[in-house]
């Protein structure tokens, strides 16, 4: 699978005669141009992708990560691989995610807070990484952990979440060809606010599944507990598949605000990747396993 694997009709941002502040307030408009039934996906600007972030380790405000993440040291960086796996150990980033294997993937990213972006990621399919590590037959899930270091991540001094940030995937989700370990975006190395030096990207799930600045991968037989699930289990589930039919208890998930546009657009089942991933969840009640 190459470049635009996701089947996203992407058009590059076009020049506009509007003053910048008006374009900000009223959007680039014409999201339904071309008479297509579905709005066109335009790549979100590099500026927005790198300044509008949720990375609570650096503060709760969307601008906080860009302001405060600079102090995090990302080289050298090691990832501990443990659990039900033939090749456990401590891996340097470049050994785990070889730069020569990096591909580009342009994915929609839908935050659980009902906003979304289109981001050209650079990374390596997680499946390729996992195959080299050789999980045992007992490995049914893989758990991930973010760095825990309150000195570098001042947000960890406040008890918003049970640090370190933790996420997990079922093994078939982790092996799915769409699932990516990203080390860059827009052809540049990831900035710290985007989860440098390596982060997960699962495009059919809400953004909070995409754990940043990973230091640990643990293969296990039972389902791992995730940070958001621990903090509010009735609001954030383990699967966290994008689903317009299952609302968050406090807000609707039917629509989303695509950054750069005015108003809302409909949210798509599995964030528009249903053709590729719906079969992973056959027979499951997605309203209960949300």
């Amino acid at each position: 699978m190459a470049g635009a694997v996701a089947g996203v009709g992407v058009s590059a941002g076009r020049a506009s005669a509007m003053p910048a502040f008006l374009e900000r307030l009223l959007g680039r408009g014409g999201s339904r141009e071309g008479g297509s039934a579905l709005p066109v996906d335009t790549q979100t600007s590099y500026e927005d992708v790198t300044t509008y972030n949720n990375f609570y380790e650096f503060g709760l405000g969307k601008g906080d990560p860009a302001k405060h993440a600079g102090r995090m040291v990302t080289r050298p960086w090691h990832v501990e691989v443990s659990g039900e796996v033939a090749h456990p150990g401590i891996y340097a980033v470049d050994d785990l995610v070889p730069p020569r294997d990096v591909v580009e993937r342009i994915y929609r990213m839908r935050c659980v807070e009902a906003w979304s972006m289109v981001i050209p990621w650079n990374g390596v399919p997680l499946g390729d990484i996992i195959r080299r590590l050789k999980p045992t037959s007992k490995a049914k899930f893989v758990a991930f952990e973010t760095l825990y270091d309150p000195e570098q991540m001042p947000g960890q001094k406040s008890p918003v979440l049970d640090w370190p940030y933790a996420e997990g995937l079922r093994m078939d989700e982790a092996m799915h060809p769409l699932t990516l370990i990203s080390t860059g975006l827009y052809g540049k190395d990831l900035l710290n606010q985007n989860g440098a030096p390596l982060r997960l990207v699962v495009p059919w799930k809400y953004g909070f599944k995409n754990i940043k600045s990973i230091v640990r991968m643990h293969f296990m037989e039972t389902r791992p507990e995730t940070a958001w699930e621990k903090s509010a289990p009735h609001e954030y589930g383990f699967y966290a598949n994008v689903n317009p039919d299952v609302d968050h208890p406090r807000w609707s998930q039917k629509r989303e605000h695509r950054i750069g546009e005015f108003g809302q657009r409909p949210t798509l089942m599995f964030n528009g990747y249903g053709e590729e991933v719906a079969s992973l969840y056959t027979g499951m009640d997605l309203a209960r396993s949300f």
Partner: protein
Amino acid sequence: MFPWIEAFNARVASLSFFPIIASIHKRHGQKLLSLVCLLPLLGSVAEGLMGQLGARPWFRAMGEMGEIALAMLIACLAITPLVQAFDWKFLYPWRRTFGLFAFFYAILHVLARAMDLGLDLGAIMEGMFTNPFLLTGFLAFLVMVPLAVTSTKKMMATLGGKRWRLLHKLTYVAAILAIAHALMAGKAGYINFLPQAVILAILLLWRLVYPTLRKAMQKPQG
């Protein structure tokens, strides 16, 4: 209420420039306070004109206006306890100003939300009566309408002091609904508005405790 406060107030009143301040406050106090209350709006408008409201400008503006509305409501509810505790009667007229600005910012909060949702009526109304987060906000806004409408001296006279005061106890209801609404906002929930919730709780508790407190303080003096 406390002897040291009396001494402090007397000391301030004896300062040489006090009469000037007092006269400015008497003649222009309301206008000056209104100008101060407009500053947050001017700040947000300036941010918007400079493109500094971030990737979701209307959503950010909605949050800012809502936060200011809540702050104004808290300021409004802080006046009576401040007068009771420190005997600063000059603060009384500020109550109406803060209350009206709370309503003003609540209107801006609602308008910014409408813009954020692209003026799509379906999206705006969705869950308004069923989702506790939206419902508390909607009710807080609704409760403030009669308060704003009856804020004039004329309406006070029409209603009569007793009924007017009873009606304006709805301010407590508006504040409780507004803080409940705020605590339900955001992905992580309550954490963002904890300080406001604590201050509001103190201001409301004060009203329960004050009558007893005053009696206890007055006893020794016979």
